[in-house]
């Protein structure tokens, strides 16, 4: 667990991937452009001494991922958000099946999400049912800008998409994570427009819509939708690494999010392996709101808020019992591997004067 000023903070990294962008998996030039674009985001917002080289970035594998997430106890759990891109990558870029390699080996440490694509029609519904049966997925990551043949994207407020959301509701798949964020070459910028979330969220009040990347570069549209739809949440992936080299900007974005959504609807995510929690968690935990922003927005980035954003809010959505996890992690395989037992040792909060 992350130690912050003598206090433990349980960190759920709500946005991680196990991807494969090796050349022999790429079947379309879009696949190469996509990973190159990811790499630009990586180098732009990663401290120079922590940057990876391109070959390790293409494929880092399960062992390295476990070490990056848990080795220095930066994160306690990770939520897999798949990105299929099967038009670009032979076996897919980061599918539920690929992620399952780790998620089934360490079921206590990972949450495994699925996906759907309404353009797949009845086959897609069947696939969603299959994911539900095989992995009991509690959520889906949706990529509205994904290419499929001639189609360059789809909308969450389409009739066909609603059919899939109904199916999610029927199967008890409650957490819907649409990617609404920065353009990634070669995908179409407009297919990341966040406005389609509005109708979907109001039509499915029992589902939770976690908008990944808080809609950037449409933070304004996102916050306005979230202010009106109580089941809309914001995923901090992409905004988080601003803490490292744009601290004033980070303070401002976080202040806006806390003002419009409140402290219960913002979730931390690293976007691993675009950024690595082994340094990013610390940057976000140690970040401060500027005195000007605190005064202007009347919000705080204090211990209570950090606990919610870094873990408790995700735990709430995914029915994770943090105290139970803490007991389990005292001697699970990962704690043994990295000698982390002490991090989970104190079961009850220590007395105030200890």
């Amino acid at each position: 667990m992350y130690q912050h000023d003598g206090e433990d903070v349980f960190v759920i990294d709500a946005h991680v991937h196990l991807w494969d962008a090796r050349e022999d998996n790429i079947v379309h030039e879009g696949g190469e452009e996509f990973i190159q674009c990811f790499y630009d985001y990586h180098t732009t917002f990663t401290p120079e001494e922590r940057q990876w080289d391109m070959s390790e970035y293409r494929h880092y594998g399960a062992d390295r991922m476990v070490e990056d997430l848990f080795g220095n106890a930066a994160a306690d759990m990770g939520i897999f958000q798949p990105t299929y891109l099967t038009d670009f990558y032979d076996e897919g870029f980061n599918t539920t099946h690929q992620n399952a390699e780790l998620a089934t080996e360490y079921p206590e440490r990972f949450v495994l999400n699925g996906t759907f694509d309404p353009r797949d029609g009845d086959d897609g519904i069947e696939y969603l049912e299959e994911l539900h049966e095989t992995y009991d997925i509690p959520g889906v990551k949706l990529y509205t800008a994904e290419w499929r043949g001639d189609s360059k994207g789809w909308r969450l407020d389409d009739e066909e998409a609603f059919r899939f959301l109904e199916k999610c509701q029927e199967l008890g798949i409650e957490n819907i994570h649409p990617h609404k964020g920065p353009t990634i070459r070669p995908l179409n910028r407009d297919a990341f427009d966040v406005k389609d979330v509005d109708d979907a969220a109001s039509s499915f009040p029992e589902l939770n819509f976690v908008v990944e990347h808080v809609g950037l570069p449409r933070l304004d549209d996102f916050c306005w939708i979230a202010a009106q739809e109580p089941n809309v949440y914001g995923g901090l992936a992409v905004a988080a690494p601003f803490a490292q080299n744009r601290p004033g900007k980070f303070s401002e974005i976080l202040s806006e999010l806390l003002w419009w959504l409140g402290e219960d609807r913002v979730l931390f995510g690293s976007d691993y392996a675009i950024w690595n929690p082994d340094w990013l968690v610390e940057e976000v935990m140690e970040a401060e709101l500027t005195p000007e922003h605190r005064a202007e927005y009347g919000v705080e980035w204090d211990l209570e808020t950090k606990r919610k954003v870094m873990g408790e809010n995700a735990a709430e959505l995914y029915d994770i019992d943090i105290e139970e996890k803490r007991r389990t992690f005292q001697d699970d395989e990962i704690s043994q591997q990295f000698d982390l037992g002490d991090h989970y040792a104190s079961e009850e909060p220590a007395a105030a004067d200890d």
Partner: protein
Amino acid sequence: MSTPEPTDGAGSEGPDRAAVRDRLDRVTDPELDRSIVELEYVDAIEVDGDRVTVRFTLPTAWCSPAFAWMMAIDARDEVETLPNVADARIVLREHMHEREITRGVNQRLSFAEAFPDADGDVAAVRVELDRKARIARQYDAIEALLEAGLGPGTIVDLTVADLDRPADRAAVSAADDDAERIPIAVQGEAVVVPVPAVPLDRYLEKARTTGVVSDSDDVLFRTPEGDPIDAGSFDLVHRRGRLAKVNMSSQGGICDGLREARERRFEEAGDD
């Protein structure tokens, strides 16, 4: 606007580079609502008689083709407003669609002709980004008014005519700086409050472009949807203006970062 002067050397009747630069300064990155000169996108201005060539580079090679297109078109049209420019040629560099855009703009094609495969409508994109720029500029204008001491009730009732600079009431400058101020009459002309002109003018320009105001008795400030503002929702509308500004500067942060990363890579490549 400075008066164009003949270029040195050639003795031609073309514009000087400063005049071209002044024109380009009016062109904005539509997503950031900041001048392409200020953002340092312009790499070179070449003057050959009455022909001008402008070369520019965007922060990322995959910056939206629609945005790149808008900037290229606007740059061409602005430079061609100079009386001694017959032809402005725009060259976009280091972009995934540099050929289509450079060719399309210089051959005066439409976006649809330059990009037969594009499924976006550049006019609609421009309308949406202009709308956001208007909201962000309104925030700055209202901040200036609040700082000058006007209250929300007064601000929501202001009309376009209130920003007029009547001949008999000359614009005033405060003692501490030379910034032009507009005298705004409030409380039934009983009080005149000087307010910095720049944010008000910038707002009015975008309010006109976006069509939310046209007549002089139109209410000046609007909700993001374009309606007059109810005094009771003043704070919320103003918050939304702040949010639009934060969004723009956040995107600016991403663009700046990507550009720095790219420049580092070029430097490293140069060192090899």
